[in-house]
Each structure stands twice: as C-alpha cells, then as structure tokens.
C-alpha cells in the first residue's frame, strides 16, 4: 500500500496545504515561528513534538479555528484568512477530528453524522441517512445509529466523530491528538479506522504520538518544538536516525515507555 509522493505530478496544483513563512503569537508567546510546509494530495503527514510546541495550533490554522498573523497559508487553492475566501465553504472540504470528540450530545450517532450533510451540503435526508448508516458500518458501529454519545465509549465516540467528518466527503482530514483522551484498549480501534481512511487516499495531517501509526501510513513525520518545525522526514528515517538533539531527546522520552 505504499504511496509515494514522488509519483505525483509536479506543479502548484499538486499541493493541497501550503504554509509559507506562517507566524502566530498568543500574546507574547510565539506559537508558530516561520512555518513553511507543504502537503500533497493523498499524503499523510504526522506532526509530533512536546506539548506546547504549537502542533495543534498548526493544524487548527488550516481550517481557520485559529488565525495566522503573518505569512501565507493556502488550502485547496484558497488563501486562509483572505477576506475573499469563503471560510465556511472551505471548511466543508476539511474534516477535523478533535481530541475530545465534540459529538453533539443531544443528537444520536446517526444524527451527528447527517446534520452537516443535510443542512450544509443540502443532501436529501433519506440519502444522508443512507450514507450515514454506511459510514457507521464502515467504522464498525453499524448497530449504534440510534445511540446517544453518552451511551458510547470514548473509542466509539471518536469513531462516530471520524464518520461525521467523512460524511461531508472532505478533501482533507485533520486529526488533533485523536487518541490522547482514550483508554489504552480503545486506541487501536480508532487507529485502525484512521489507517483505513489513509489507505483510501485521503490527504491527512495527524497530530499524534502514536509512532506505530506514523510507521504504517505516514509518508512524512514533522517534528515541532517551541513553534518551529525542527525536523521533517520519512518515518523510518526520523525514528531510526533523528538528526537534531531535540528530536533525539523527544524520541527518547516517548519511545522508552
């Protein structure tokens, strides 16, 4: 299943996400320091780094949950933060999976999935429900369509959240520490779904410390520290032969246990 980004045609349309000298500050804290990074179609990029290194902020900028203050960020050929860009429309092309799932507690699993397709995409309800059931089956929860989020385990909730994103048929999926809030025995069920999504050719940016996942599907690992991209490379290369002191120290900490 190895998909190599080098096979892609070159040219500007081969890039879906492009950061060019992006900077962001929270007050005096420089959370994103001159980020330059491009992601190609069907590419899976894993972002890792110590807590507070700016990795969540990085992917939250892509769909405008955070605003950048300097530099250029182009997503799906549209400039994020440009008044001419319809962010609401752009967001329909970008799925976002949260650490804390953020399912709608007053809606069933199926309603969670069909809400945006029906109201944003204007998909007919019957069609949206049919698609929704298929997606639930795909994430292994075919029998849970009528369950409320409070009746599901963390792993099940996160799988519903992924199905909710897929229902919009996005071009890009962003994952913000999708397994960090889960009990250990539920992590693999979520990662398996993410692997399946990656293998279907989804363009993904995943903030995670799950190095097994990175090894299985990522083309690239980006290591961040203190707001900067310190190192970036193929997973095998990065894990077996980290080049900087900071990445060595970080890997030493997360791989030891």
């Amino acid at each position, binding site marked *: 299943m190895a998909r190599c980004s080098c096979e892609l045609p070159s040219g500007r349309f081969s890039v879906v996400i492009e950061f060019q000298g992006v900077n962001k500050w929270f007050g005096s804290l420089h959370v994103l320091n001159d980020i330059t990074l491009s992601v190609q179609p069907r590419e899976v990029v894993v972002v890792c780094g110590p807590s507070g290194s700016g990795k969540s902020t990085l992917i939250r900028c892509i769909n405008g949950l955070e605003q950048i203050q300097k530099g250029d960020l182009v997503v799906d050929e549209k400039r994020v933060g440009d008044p001419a860009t319809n962010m609401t429309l752009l967001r*329909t092309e970008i799925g976002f999976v*949260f650490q804390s799932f*953020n*399912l709608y507690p*007053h809606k069933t699993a199926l309603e969670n999935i069909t809400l*945006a397709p029906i109201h*944003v995409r204007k998909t007919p309800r019957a069609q949206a429900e049919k698609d929704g059931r298929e997606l639930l089956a795909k994430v292994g929860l075919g029998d849970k369509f*009528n369950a409320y989020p*409070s*009746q599901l385990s963390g792993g099940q909730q996160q799988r519903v959240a992924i199905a909710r994103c897929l229902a919009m048929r996005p071009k890009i999926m962003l994952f913000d520490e999708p397994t960090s809030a889960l009990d250990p025995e539920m992590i693999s069920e979520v990662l398996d779904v993410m692997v399946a999504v990656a293998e279907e050719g989804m363009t993904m940016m995943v903030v995670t410390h799950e190095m097994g996942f990175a090894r299985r599907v990522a083309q690239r690992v980006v290591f961040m520290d203190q707001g900067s991209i310190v190192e970036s490379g193929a997973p095998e290369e990065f894990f077996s032969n980290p080049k900087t002191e900071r990445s060595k120290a970080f890997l030493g900490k997360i791989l030891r246990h």
Partner: protein
Amino acid sequence: MLENFSFRTIGEYLPLFGQGLVTTVWLSVISFAGALLVGILLCAMNLQRSRALRVPAKAYIDVVRATPLLVQLYFLYFGLPRLGIILPELVVGVLALSLNSGAYVAEIIRAGILSIPRGQVEASVASGMSYLQRMRLVILPQAFKVTIPPLLGQAIVMVKDSALLSLISVAELTRAGQLLASDRFMPAEGFITVAAFYLMLYYCLKGLAVLSGRWLGLGPARSRA
C-alpha cells in the same frame, strides 16, 4: 386581633379579586413574552463581536439591574407623556415589566449559551455551518434545557413585580386589595387575600417548573419515542 376579621367582606369583594387575578395573569403572560423578546435581542447583541452592538446591550442591562423597578415604572409613566407618547396605564405597565425582566432574561439566556462547551462551537464551525445554523442546530437546543428552570424563576419574580402596577392604577390583583383596604378600611382582609392569590400563582408556576424539569429530565434517551 382577628376576632373581627370579615370573611363576609372578602366574599363581597371576590368578583373584584377575580378580575384582578385574571388581569395579573394575562398581563404577566404578555409581559413575559415581551421579556423573552427583549432578552433574546439583548443577548444576541451582547454575544456579538461588534462593540457597537455589545456596549449598548451591556449598558442597558446594567442600568435596568441597577435601578429599582418602581423608578423605571415612574420613569415611563411620567416620562413618556412628556415625549408626547400617551399610552394607557396597562400598556405602560406591560412595557415596564417587559423592559425590566428582559434584562434579567438576557443574562439567563447568555449564561445558558456560555455553559455550552467551546468544543461544540468548534465542531459545528469545522463542519462548515453558518452562525445561524450553529445557533439553531447545536447551541440553542442544548442551551434551552439549562435555561428553562431559571427562566421560570424569573417568571415568578415578574408576577410578584407586577404588583407595582397597582401604583399607576392598573386594576390588577394588588389594586383589588388596595380598594378593599381603603373603601372598607380593612387592610388585613385586603392584603391577606391578595397574598393568598399570589401564593396560588406561585404554586402554579412552581408546578410548571417541576413538570418541565421532569420533561427535560427524560433526557435524550427517550426523546425519540
């Protein structure tokens, strides 16, 4: 002290109390509907990013909460005619109650909306919903649940506040008691009867609060039935 307490006089005045009760009930219903409208509008303004909308809403809420209702009532009752606006006492009274209660309702609704976790907003933003879709489909249905009990509490307060309208001679419940007290010089008969009627109204609203709590308490698991 109560040996000459006259139930007979109360009986004579019962039709007047009945009319007063009916007036109190329907003017409260209209005023509370008005308060909800004012409250929703103020709250919507208060939650906007634009200062031009937020500042007037906040100022209004502060002024109303910082001044006594009686002062506000007199302000409208004596002030509006000076602006050339002559309205019946009852309309002035309903207006005062709506404008006053609206400020409290605005804060109740705002607290309800702010109690919804930030992640709910973010999830709906990320899925491409517009502001109005987010409010209608995600935030308000959840906020609604938490605001019902405090809104009923505010309704109870407003029913009692409506007694002040007797001072601008609206023929509501307290006014009926005042008439009995002054015509027959029987303040005890007049005001004890009035108190009993308010207590009754209170229990009706409280019953409603309990029912709505039970209804909401059914929660999501059974709402599909």
